[in-house]
């Protein structure tokens, strides 16, 4: 795949995000919030908070192969090797007083927070994770305690969640010193909705045969949709990317040198092995054209004219928070839309929440779609749980199986 111009722009945006956070943390007049990746970011931005995402830091630790330097430190402090390895890598790095942001962006430390905000729609680990920092910094820890295993997202269910969002307002007012302004919230929601829509369109280009990007590209390109959600820069970025991608699809440029297999990747990336796996998939002519993970930042429900209900709805509709029955329907639709030949599930040892392999979903989806699947055992960050050789053998054998099935 040719190097995209947008990538340069994204690097600038990410650098600006971190240096901006650093400056805000050092300025007593400005406030920093730490938030989960699918937490109420829009609400925080309404109050002028600079928002930092510990999960993103976890991914940076993984991608820079630093995670395993720090995970044991958190393990020794009582955080089990069986729990979220974003948490253990991040807490371990904090205990060591180190961060890859020093090398990457010149930050001496992660930006000190004034408030911690979570949403348990993704998992309970985030609350425990942030509780560590709440104790350390002695600052407020607030959030949304969301139902999980959600089937249909009904209006009634949405309504029950709205008060939790409203209850955050006085806390945010107190910490930020700024009064709540619903029009400002509508503005932020407009930006978020636009970012979501565009990110969805970006991912949609991969339905083209051959796909102009793979999961390895989108794992990188999704950064603005996560860390800059609610800011106009994010939508500007995706407009630029989309333009480049349409040139590629028009010219039938393929992300892998020879797209013989179109694969659905379910689960998280193995951050420390992005490059190796990307090269490997390219070598075996397989393009990962759709993923549950990257699609999770497409929030179709956002509606600035109805901010609270639509926010509550968007965060309930999140794939990870849904019942297996709902997940099966969503995945089947994606399989069809992206014309995949099969599904590879990544069972991440330390994130059961993103591992859709443990309650028979792969078998049921195969039954529904007729598509074959295989499971790769690994982890998002803890490379002690990942055998590269075994994973590659599984994947190669899976592609041989697909090939054999073609007759």
């Amino acid at each position: 795949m040719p190097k995209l111009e947008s990538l340069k722009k994204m690097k600038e945006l990410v650098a600006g995000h971190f240096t901006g956070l650093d400056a805000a943390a050092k300025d007593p007049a400005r406030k920093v919030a730490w938030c989960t990746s699918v937490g109420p970011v829009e609400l925080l931005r309404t109050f002028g908070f600079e928002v930092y995402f510990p999960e993103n830091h976890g991914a940076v630790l993984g991608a820079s192969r630093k995670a395993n330097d720090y995970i044991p430190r958190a393990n020794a402090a009582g955080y089990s090797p069986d729990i979220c390895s974003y948490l253990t890598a991040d807490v371990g790095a904090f205990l060591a007083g180190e961060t890859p942001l020093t090398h990457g962006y010149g930050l001496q430390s992660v930006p000190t927070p004034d408030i911690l905000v979570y949403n348990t729609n993704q998992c309970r680990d985030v609350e425990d994770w942030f509780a560590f920092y709440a104790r350390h910094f002695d600052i407020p820890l607030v959030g949304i305690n969301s139902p999980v295993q959600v089937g249909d997202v009904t209006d009634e269910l949405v309504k029950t969640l709205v008060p939790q969002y409203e209850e955050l307002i006085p806390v945010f007012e107190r910490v930020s010193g700024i009064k709540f302004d619903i029009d400002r919230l509508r503005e932020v929601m407009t930006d978020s909705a636009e970012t979501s829509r565009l990110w969805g369109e970006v991912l949609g280009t991969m339905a083209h045969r051959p796909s102009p990007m793979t999961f390895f590209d989108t794992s990188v390109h999704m950064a603005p949709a996560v860390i800059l959600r609610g800011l106009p820069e994010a939508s500007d970025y995706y407009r630029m990317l989309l333009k480049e991608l349409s040139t590629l699809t028009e010219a039938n440029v393929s992300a892998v040198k020879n797209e013989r297999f179109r694969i659905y990747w379910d689960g998280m990336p193995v951050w420390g092995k992005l490059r190796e796996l990307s090269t490997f998939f390219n070598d075996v002519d397989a393009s990962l054209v759709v993923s549950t993970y990257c699609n999770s930042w497409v929030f179709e429900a956002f509606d600035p004219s109805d901010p609270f209900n639509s926010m509550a709805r968007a965060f309930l509709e999140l794939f990870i928070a849904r019942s297996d029955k709902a997940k099966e329907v969503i995945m089947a639709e994606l399989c069809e839309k992206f014309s995949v030949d099969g599904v590879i599930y990544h069972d991440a040892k330390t994130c059961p929440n993103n591992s859709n392999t443990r309650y028979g979903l792969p078998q049921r989806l195969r039954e529904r779609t007729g598509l074959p699947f295989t499971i790769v055992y690994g982890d998002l960050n803890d490379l002690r749980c990942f055998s590269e050789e075994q994973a590659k053998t599984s994947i190669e054998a899976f592609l041989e199986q697909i090939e054999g099935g073609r007759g």
Partner: protein
Amino acid sequence: MSFYCGVDIGSTWTKAVILGEEEKSDYTRALVRTGISFEAAALSARDEALARAKLAPEDITRTFSTGYGRMNAEFADGRRTEIACHAKGAFHSFPHPCHVVDIGGQDNKIIQLNASGAVEHFLMNRKCAAGTGSFIEEISRRLDIDMKRLEELAENATKEITLSSFCTVFSATEVIKLIREGENPENIAKGVFNAVVARVTEMGTLGGKVVLTGGVAAAFPIVAQILSKATGQEVFIPEHAQFTGALGAALEAKTSS
């Protein structure tokens, strides 16, 4: 006359097979310890097979490699995963829809084949070697009993024990506990084989006929009996079960062009 070679470079043993035009069941085979160099093991297995077949390397039309070290056999013309090769080799000896169960030195596989021998689905065990050949080796070392005698002992067991741990090291601890409790060696030996089968049957459902391949099946036929009892299915062990992967690789070499 054309000849085809398949080399299966496993974690413990490297196997080579040479096939001629007509497919005899008594094809040429060679077996060497893999040791620390996959490339050297692959070459020496192939050379040994060549010597047995009284052939020179240039007599071989094509060679395919498979197994854990398949990338390391640089002399090979092609490579396939052990899943594809076990499927091919097993179906060659047993041309029916079936589940192939391969118990190797360090991993186990279940491969589901349809009526034309195509792979419908496959499963590999997770990272731990519990229930594999190296598990049997480790436990026999703990028991201080020669591996070869383990089956003989198991045949005289009077009680069914199954080591339940997913982990080889924990299983060894279970064995120590049994010894301490005065359990007799026959029952413990049977427990080891029961554990091998349990690790396989908990990987996935085995419907229809079962073909058991790999070194463990070849060395310990009792595993097939236990597996048959556990699944209620007929279990078939191909001749030269340990060479199924290498045979599959040779067949792949023959059919590819």
